[in-house]
C-alpha cells in the first residue's frame, strides 16, 4: 500500500474515496508491522510506591510509618528486601510466573511535587515545555504514533479508554478514538426519523468527510477529523468479539476498561497503542483502606487482562507499562495519609517482559531528598527501552534525546510459558 499521510487523506477524502470504502482494507493490512502492542496504564494522583512495593527489611519503614506500615506477616515478599502490598496477590503470582516486573526510584530532574507539572512532563517527555502555563501540544506516545504508525493509521490504531484523549497521546496525524464502553459507542437516532436511521447517518457522516479545503478555520478541520474517526471507529468496533466471561475482571471502571481493550485487540484491527487511566491515588488522608482497594482493583484488573490475553493467544503481542506522576512522602502525615513526594515505582507486564525481577535499587529509606525518595532512573529510560526493544523503532526522535536501555525486554521465559488455565 502506498504510504500516505492520514491528515492529507482526510483533506482530500471527499474528493476521491470515502473512509467507508477504505477502512476494511486498512484493517486487513498488518503488513510491515510486527504487530506488537503497547498499553499505557496511568495511575492518576501520585501512587504511594512505598506501600505498593515495600522495602520491608529497611527498619526505617516502620519508623516513618507507625500507622500506615503494612504488618510484616501480610506483605507478599518477592525478595529478601522487597514485597508487594497484600492486595496485590494476583500480581505477586504473575511476578512468580515472570510476567510482571517493576522499576524502582523512577522520576526526573525537575520533579516538584506538582500534579500538573509532573503529569505534563511524564506525558510530553519534555521538561522544558511542560507545566500548567506552557502547554505542550504533543505527547510522547502521540509523537511515536505519528512517526512510526502514520502510514498504516486508522481510527483505532491509537485508542484511549475513557472520554478524553490524554496529553500523552496528542498527535498530529494518528488521532486516537476515545471510547468508554462498546455498548454505548453508538449513535442513537429518533425512531420517528423519516426514511429511517441509515439515510440520516449517511447524511451526517457525509458532512464530516467533505474536504474542508477553502475553510480557513483550523479547529473546524480538527473537528471534522475527529468526526470521521468517530464514524469509522463505530464501524470497526462492531467487529469486536464478546467480552471474556472467565478472565475474572473486577467490576470496576478499570476492569471494564481492560476488558474492552482485550476485545479490541482480539479483533485484530491493527491497534498499536492504548492508554487507560484510573484515579484516586492522591491519598492525603486516611490512606490505608483506600489504597488497599485501589491496589486490589489494579492487581485484579491487570491479572485478568493477562489471563484474557492468554486465552485469546494474544499474550505474546502485548506489554503493559504502568506509571504515576510521582511517589509520595516517605513519612506519613498527621492525618494517616501521605503527601506529594518525588520518585516512584513503574510496572511492566507481558510475556516479553523479563519478569520476576525488579530494575533499579531497593529504595533506601535512610537517604531521602527532602523526605522523598530521590530519582535514580529517568522515566524516559523506560520509554526508551520499550520503543527500542519492544516496538522496534529508534526512540531518539520521539524522546528528543538519548536515554539508557534498561534491558527489561526479552524472549518469553520458557519455564513460565505454560498458560494459566482459568475456568
Amino acid at each position, binding site marked *: 500500500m502506498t504510504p500516505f499521510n492520514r491528515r492529507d487523506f482526510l483533506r482530500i477524502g*471527499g474528493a476521491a474515496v470515502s473512509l467507508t470504502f477504505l477502512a476494511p482494507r486498512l484493517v486487513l493490512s498488518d503488513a510491515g508491522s510486527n504487530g506488537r502492542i503497547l498499553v499505557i496504564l496511568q495511575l492518576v494522583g501520585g501512587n504511594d510506591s512505598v506501600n505498593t512495593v515495600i522495602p520491608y527489611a529497611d527498619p526505617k519503614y516502620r519508623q516513618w510509618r507507625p500507622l500506615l506500615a503494612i504488618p510484616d506477616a501480610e506483605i507478599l515478599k518477592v525478595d529478601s528486601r522487597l514485597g508487594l502490598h497484600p492486595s496485590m496477590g494476583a500480581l505477586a503470582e504473575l511476578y512468580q510466573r515472570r510476567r510482571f516486573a517493576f522499576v524502582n526510584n523512577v522520576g526526573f530532574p525537575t520533579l516538584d511535587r506538582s*500534579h*500538573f507539572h509532573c503529569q505534563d512532563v511524564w506525558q510530553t517527555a519534555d521538561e522544558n515545555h511542560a507545566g*500548567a*502555563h506552557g502547554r505542550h501540544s504533543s505527547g510522547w506516545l502521540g509523537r511515536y504514533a505519528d512517526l512510526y504508525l502514520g502510514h498504516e493509521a486508522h*481510527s483505532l490504531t491509537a485508542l*484511549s479508554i*475513557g*472520554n*478524553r*484523549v490524554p496529553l500523552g497521546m496528542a498527535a498530529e496525524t494518528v*488521532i*486516537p*478514538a*476515545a*471510547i*468508554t464502553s462498546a455498548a454505548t*459507542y*453508538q*449513535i*442513537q*437516532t*429518533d425512531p*420517528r*426519523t*423519516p*426514511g429511517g436511521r441509515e*439515510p*440520516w447517518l449517511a*447524511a*451526517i457522516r*457525509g*458532512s*464530516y468527510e*467533505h474536504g*474542508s479545503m*477553502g*475553510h480557513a*478555520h483550523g*479547529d*473546524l478541520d*480538527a*473537528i*471534522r477529523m*475527529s*468526526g470521521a*474517526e*468517530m464514524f469509522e*471507529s*463505530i464501524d470497526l468496533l462492531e467487529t469486536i468479539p464478546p467480552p471474556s466471561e472467565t478472565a475474572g475482571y473486577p467490576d470496576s471502571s478499570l476492569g471494564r476498561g481492560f476488558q474492552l481493550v482485550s476485545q479490541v485487540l482480539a479483533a485484530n484491527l491493527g491497534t498499536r497503542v492504548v492508554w487507560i487511566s484510573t484515579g484516586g491515588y492522591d491519598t492525603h488522608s486516611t490512606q490505608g483502606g483506600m489504597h488497599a482497594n485501589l491496589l486490589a482493583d489494579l492487581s485484579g484488573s491487570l491479572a485478568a487482562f493477562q489471563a484474557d490475553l492468554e486465552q485469546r493467544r494474544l499474550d505474546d503481542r502485548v506489554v503493559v507499562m504502568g506509571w504515576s506522576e510521582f511517589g509520595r512522602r516517605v513519612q506519613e502525615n498527621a492525618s494517616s495519609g501521605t503527601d506529594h513526594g518525588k520518585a516512584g515505582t513503574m510496572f511492566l507486564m507481558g510475556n516479553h517482559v523479563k519478569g520476576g525481577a525488579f530494575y533499579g535499587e531497593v529504595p533506601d529509606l535512610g537517604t531521602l531528598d527532602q523526605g522523598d525518595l530521590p530519582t535514580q532512573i529517568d522515566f524516559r529510560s523506560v520509554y526508551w527501552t520499550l520503543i527500542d526493544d519492544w516496538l522496534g523503532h529508534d526512540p531518539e526522535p520521539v524522546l528528543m534525546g538519548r536515554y539508557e536501555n534498561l534491558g527489561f525486554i526479552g524472549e518469553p521465559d520458557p519455564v513460565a510459558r505454560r498458560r494459566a488455565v482459568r475456568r
Partner: protein
Amino acid sequence: MASIVWDRRAAAHLYRRAGFGATPEETDRAVDEGMEASVARLVDYESIDDSALEQRLARARIDPTTFVGILRWWLLRMMYTARPLEERMTFLLHDHFATSAFKVQDPGWMLQQNELLRRYALGDLTELTIEISRDPAMLVWLDNYLSRKEHPNENYGRELLELFLLGHGAYSEQDVMSATRAFTGWTISRRTRQFTFIDAIHDHGQKTFLGQTGDWNGDDVVRIACESDAHAHFMAHKMFESLAYANPDEHVIHQLAHVYHDSGTSMRELVRAILTSDAFYSDAAIWAKVKSPVDHAIASVRQLRIDGDPSRFAASILAYQGQVPFNPPDVDGWPSGLAWINSGTLLGRMNYATAVTAASDPFVIGAGATIGNAAEMVSVFLDRLGPIDVPHETRARLEGWVSPDGGLPGAGEYAATGRGLAHLILSLAEWQLN
C-alpha cells in the same frame, strides 16, 4: 465602530458569547435595536424581569442541600434566564475562581459561593476578590482556613496571585509569602460555619508586597494587587480571551486594560468595552471558538426553545464530557478549545442532540417562514439555528436528506423531517464551534 457590520450573523454571535445562544426572535430584535442598545440590554440586566425563571425553579422541586440539586438549579438558570449575560459571567467567574465540590463537599457552601459570584457577575472585581477570600468554599478549597502565623499555608496566596489576580511571572516568591502571611487568620468559625478572622493567629509583622511595605492584611493585599497595571492587563486579557478569541493583539488588550483600570476594576465596563469592540465582531472572533460542553448543552435547549426540565439529561452529558459546573478539575479551571473534541465527545454531543431535537417543535423553529421546497427549508433551519455557514456540499446533503427530489416533505411528515433536520444541523462540525 464603522467597521462593524451589524446583521443577524453579528447579533447571533453576541448572544452566543454573552449568553448561551439566541432564539430567532432575540436575534431579530437585536438587529432592529442596533449593536449598542443590544449590548446595553445584555449588560444592564438588572431591570429585566426574570420572575418566569424563578417560577420555573420553584416548580422544578429542587433539593438545594444536594449536589445534584444545586447543579440542576444552575443548569436551569442557564437554560431559561432572561438575563443571559448574568449567567454567562457567573459561569466565567466560576471558571476563574475555580472551586470544586469534590474537595469542599458541602453543597450549601458551593451554592453560597455561586450566589456571591452572581451578585458580583458584573460588579467590582476588587470587592469580589475581598469577598471570595472570605468565602467558606474557597477557604476550604485552597486550605486557607488552616493557615496560621506559625504554619502559614501558601496555597491561597500563590493561586490568588498566579491564577486570580496577576498571572504567572508578575510577582516574586516574596510576594507569595507576604500575601500568605497577610491572609493568616482568615478562617471558618466552627460554630457559624462562616468566615471569621482570628487575630491571635494572624501575622501582624511588616510585609513587603509588590514593592509596598506595611502590616498588610488580606484586604490590603487584594487592593494593592488590583490597583496594579499588571492586574488590569491580566484581567482584560483573560476576559477578552474568554468572550472573544485566543491570542489577541497587544493593542486590543492595552485599550481594554485602560478602560478597566480607569473604571476602578468594574467588570461591567470591561465587558461592555469588549462586547462593543471592533475586534469582538471581527472574522477572528465569529465562530472562532469551540463550544465547550456547557455551551453545547445549554445552547441546544435555548435555541430549540425546549420546554420542561432537561437539566438531569444535561447533567449526565456534561459529566460524560468532563465539564460539570461546581466541579472543575483543578484551580486552573476547565480546558478550552480542541481539548473538548474527540470521537467519544462528538458521539456524546450527537446523542444529546438526538434527545433534545426529539423534544423540539419544528413548527416553532420554522415559525413565520415561507417554505416552498427542500432548499428553503434547509435555509430557514440553518438561519434559525445559527445563522451558520456550511460548505456547499453539506447544504446539498441536507437538502437531499429532506427530499430527494428537492420538494417538500409529504403532508404529515413536516414535524419529523424538521426534527431530523435540526438533529443534523446540531450534529454538524460547524455547530460545534461557537
